[in-house]
Every structure is written in structure tokens, then in C-alpha cells.
């Protein structure tokens, strides 16, 4: 089940899309490590290791050529998935088969981001042969 009740559909401009994609990638890159090394300003060159819990991560799934790429993904509990429509026609992302959650209609260039606690299969309800799934490790 999704842990964000309100899916975020951003505006349609490519600049915003690109900005969010870059932010997601940056966030993803910054949050990839569970361990950080912190330097204190008053220190005389010594460092302290602090173990932080793994921060949520964001993975990207591209919609292109009437398919979700990658079609299968393994994520950690609480991680987000960022779907971006690079196809020539509009699609959506709908939980399969009950439709417990669903993105708005994603026009070419639109994207949808949501965090998850449970594994799920999904499909495009407009083009039902387009399917994907993600597993929580």
C-alpha cells in the first residue's frame, strides 16, 4: 500500500520535469549511504563516525515504447518510485488487479512519484498489456 495518500502530479513543463528528475536523482544519490562521516568545526582534524538509518531512496521507471522500464524492481520499505512518461501517448500507473491506487493520466512528459511499504503489481489501465511490478526486500 502506498504511504503517501496524495500522489504528486507535477506540472507538464519539461523544465519542471527535468528539475524534479534531477532532484530525485540527487536525493537518491545523497541518500544511498546509510553511514556518514561528520566533521565538527571545532575539531582539530579528528572525525566521528555516526551510523544513520537508511534514508528513503527513489528509483525511476521510464514509460517508453508501450512498456515500463524496468518492468521489475526491488526496493526497500518506504522507498519511492518515480514514473516518467517518455512515450508518445498518455498512460497511467494503476495497482493490479484491484486498482487500490492509481496515478492521474500522465501525458507525454508528465511524471508520478509515490512511496510504498508493500510489494505490488501494476499496469496501465488504458493499455492493459503494459504491466510491471516491484518487490519490497
Amino acid at each position, binding site marked *: 500500500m502506498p504511504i503517501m495518500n496524495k500522489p504528486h502530479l507535477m506540472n507538464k513543463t519539461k523544465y519542471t520535469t527535468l528539475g524534479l528528475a534531477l532532484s530525485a536523482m540527487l536525493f537518491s544519490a545523497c541518500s544511498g549511504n546509510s553511514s556518514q562521516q561528520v566533521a565538527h568545526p571545532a575539531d582539530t582534524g579528528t572525525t566521528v563516525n555516526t551510523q544513520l538509518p537508511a534514508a528513503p531512496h527513489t528509483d525511476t521507471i521510464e514509460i517508453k*515504447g*508501450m512498456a515500463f522500464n524496468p518492468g521489475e524492481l526491488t526496493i526497500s520499505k518506504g522507498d519511492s518510485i518515480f514514473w516518467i512518461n517518455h*512515450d*508518445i*501517448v*498518455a498512460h497511467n500507473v494503476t495497482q493490479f488487479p484491484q486498482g487500490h491506487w492509481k496515478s492521474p493520466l500522465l501525458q507525454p512528459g508528465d511524471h508520478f512519484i509515490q512511496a510504498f511499504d508493500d510489494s505490488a503489481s501494476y499496469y496501465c489501465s*488504458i493499455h492493459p498489456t503494459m504491466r510491471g511490478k516491484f518487490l519490497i526486500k
Partner: protein
Amino acid sequence: MIPIKTPIKWMGTLALVSLFLVPTAEAQKTKLTDPEIASIAVTANQIDVNYGKIALKKSHNADIRTFAETMVRDHEGVIKQAVELANKLHVTPKTNAMTKSLLNGEKKTTKMLNSKSGKAFDKAYAENEAAYHDAVISAIKTKLIPDCHNAELKGLLTSVMPVLEHHLHMAKEMAAKFK
């Protein structure tokens, strides 16, 4: 392409549609220009939008209506992208023999669809959609893509192919229900 056997039932429709889309040996020798390809691409998409609108007006079958809505949405989306690209490339679509042949075919098919109602209409619409997509895919593969000069226009035609193949798959499944 998704392998589904062509049902004999709509082979006749396919043959009819092919007359308007599959280039003759003579036409095959003559290379299309990019403005002509743009015209064919926009016309072929618009025709399927028009068929979809007829289905939404005439059919009460939920599957047919859902399919028709998808056809209208997808083909209008492709037209939008094609027009945007043509404007960007300063290509003015140019009417040609293939465009005229497509429009001639549309007139006949529209008349045929309008003459039917109920289940007979649903069956005719589904069979025509399967035949039309099959013929359009063939024309793009064998004529439009090979003749296209501009890389971006060729890219657009190539990216349309998975959409058309998906439509064909859906149309064949739907047509099979009305056997």
C-alpha cells in the same frame, strides 16, 4: 509484433483496407517526400480518431466504447506530436495520392459503419480496426519509414509503431469476441 493469427472472418476487411494503404508496385518506386509523409501520418491518425468518434456515438458495448476512447485519445496525441514536429521542422504536410486514397477509403468505411447498428456495428467496427491497424503498420514499415529523410520524423514514425501494434493486438482480441 504481437503474434496473433489473422482471423479469416476479417480477411475481407483487411483486403479492402489494404487497397487504400498498401502502395502499388508503381507507387513503391516513387519516393515520398517528408511533407507527403507528414500528410499521410496525420491523415491516417485522424481517420482512426473519426472512426472512434463514430463508435462512441453508435455503440453501447462497454468494451467497444473503452477501445474507441483509447483510439481517440492515442491518435489525437500522436497528431499533436506530429503537428508540433512538422512546425518545428518547417514542414508543411502535402496532400498526395496516398492521402487521397486514405480519405477515399474513409468515406466508404464511414458509410459502411453508419449503415449498421447494434451488434452488427460493433463487429464491423472491431474488424475494421484490426484491418486498418494492420494495413497502417505495413505502410509505415514498408514505405513511410524507408522513404523518410528527416531523422526526427523517422524517429516519430518509429516510436508510433509499438502504439499501433498494441492497438492491433487489442483490436484483434475485440474482433474475436464477435465471431
